[in-house]
């Protein structure tokens, strides 16, 4: 039992991914390894086009790595989709479905009876600040609410791991801060294991237990930083010296990698 409790929720060991391109192969992921513990919130951050999405697709079971291991609860999870619920960058709420129907989509696809699926989704509406909007259509909601609905649709699937791909990337900065604050509060009450891709360094530090910085393509782990800030985190934590120290470290590493990414593009052009 003791050993099992220590088994990480997700283990990624030396994952490589190559794509065939005209005139050869392109190395996109180059030996990425990290672990995510049960109930941990990990933020993954890296320069644009570094291969984060490929890594995510591998974790979601949508793509298979060229080599390397992916384990969930110690078992091989390559190509397995049942472990994770995925939240894409766009909310992708279908205009022909009401919010409750949209949120129940994942359950319905998995074969849960329609009314039961919608009931399970409805039960979470209060938590997600969407009460009263069950029967609205997506185009009647604000950007922040749509994003919360997309997160509800992810969470309600009841899967062990949440993969969030820049969940707040499309929001204006005020709404984004509000959403981060809200998510942080909801997180404190639930033991969800989550991996989030983001471009926003502050968002990563504020929300995550650990931040992983990826290098420019072909990507590997440059930095794996534990965020020791106490929870629940107030918004004011952003101005604390501890926060600033981590931020500085991350910014420096990221800038270095972004420069490399730009040089790489320069040589390709």
């Amino acid at each position: 039992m003791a050993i099992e409790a220590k088994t990480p929720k997700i283990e990624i060991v030396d994952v490589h991914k190559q794509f065939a391109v005209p005139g050869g192969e392109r190395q996109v992921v180059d030996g990425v390894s990290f672990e995510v513990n049960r109930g941990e919130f990990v933020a993954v951050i890296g320069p644009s086009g570094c291969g984060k999405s490929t890594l995510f697709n591998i974790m979601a079971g949508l793509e298979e790595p060229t080599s390397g291991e992916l384990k969930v609860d110690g078992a091989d999870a390559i190509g397995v989709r049942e472990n994770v619920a995925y939240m894409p960058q766009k909310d992708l709420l279908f205009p022909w479905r009401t919010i409750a129907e949209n949120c129940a989509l994942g359950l319905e696809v998995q074969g849960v009876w329609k009314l039961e699926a919608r009931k399970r989704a409805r039960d979470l509406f209060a938590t997600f600040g969407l009460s009263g909007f069950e029967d609205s259509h997506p185009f009647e909601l604000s950007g922040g609410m749509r994003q919360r609905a997309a997160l509800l649709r992810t969470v309600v699937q009841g899967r062990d791991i949440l993969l969030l791909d820049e969940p707040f990337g499309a929001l204006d900065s005020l709404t984004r801060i509000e959403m981060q604050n809200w998510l942080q509060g909801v997180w404190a009450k639930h033991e969800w294991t989550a991996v989030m891709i983001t471009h926003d360094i502050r968002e990563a530090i504020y929300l995550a237990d650990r931040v992983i910085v990826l290098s420019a393509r072909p990507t590997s782990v440059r930095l794996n930083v534990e965020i020791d800030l106490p929870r629940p985190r107030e918004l004011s934590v952003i101005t604390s010296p501890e926060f600033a120290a981590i931020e500085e470290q991350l910014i420096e590493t990221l800038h270095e990698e972004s420069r490399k990414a730009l040089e790489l593009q320069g040589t390709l052009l």
Partner: protein
Amino acid sequence: MTAVPAQDEKPIPETAHLRRARRPRLPSWVGLALPPLLISLGILAAWQIIVDHFELRAQILPSPIRIVTAGWSQADIIWGHALATLQVTAVGFTAALVVAWIIAVAVDFSPWLRRGIMPLLVASQTIPVIAIAPLMIIWFGFGLLPKVIVVALVTFFPVTVGLIEGFAKTDREAGALLSSMGAGRWKLFRYARLPSALPSFFTALRISIVYAVTGAIFSEYVGAKSGLGIYMSMQKNAFRTDLVLAAVAVTAVVSITLYLSTFLVERLVIPWASKERRARRGH
């Protein structure tokens, strides 16, 4: 002198703006229907005046009033022919819809079929209907079948293309999302591709239903027992230009009614689409 009108002009746009804002808004259909009705009335009035003024012979150009009175005197006969045309249109168009759905769904599931069928679809549209319609009568006689084939041939193409393009309009990331939820190709179709395609389908439906009526009349024109097409052909041979135009007017009314009814069906089948359009326009 120059300064005075400039000062006078200034408040005018403001009050005009206020007056515009306060004016009670008419129901939207009045706003939509009024301009075309007024223009049509204007054209008809000009037509009547020209015919009266130049005393044109009714065989050459009958006046609108003459068309209406002549048409009214034959109302029962025209109505019978209109029903026959409606039947051809309905059966032919239904056949076209069935064929279009089968082809479009098959093509959506198989890229191989798509490459194989698309050129044939385009080729089918290069067949001149004017040449094929008389042949249909030679092959299939004067009954319903040749006319249904002509109508279907004219209308299945826009619906098929509308559907295929509608399926293709589905957000690509929706595929990844549904896939991560565990959906296969069929569920992807049912949950995302099919509903995504419905607005395009209704647009195509609107275009092709007007073609359907024209196609039916054309197929009747070359030979039929009844229908507005054969009626027009007979009246033309009798130099009853007024009755030909009366039948044309009935055709127009039928086409417009069918066209408008597609909006009604669309609202019933996909009520969300019009709501979304209105929301986007900012109401």
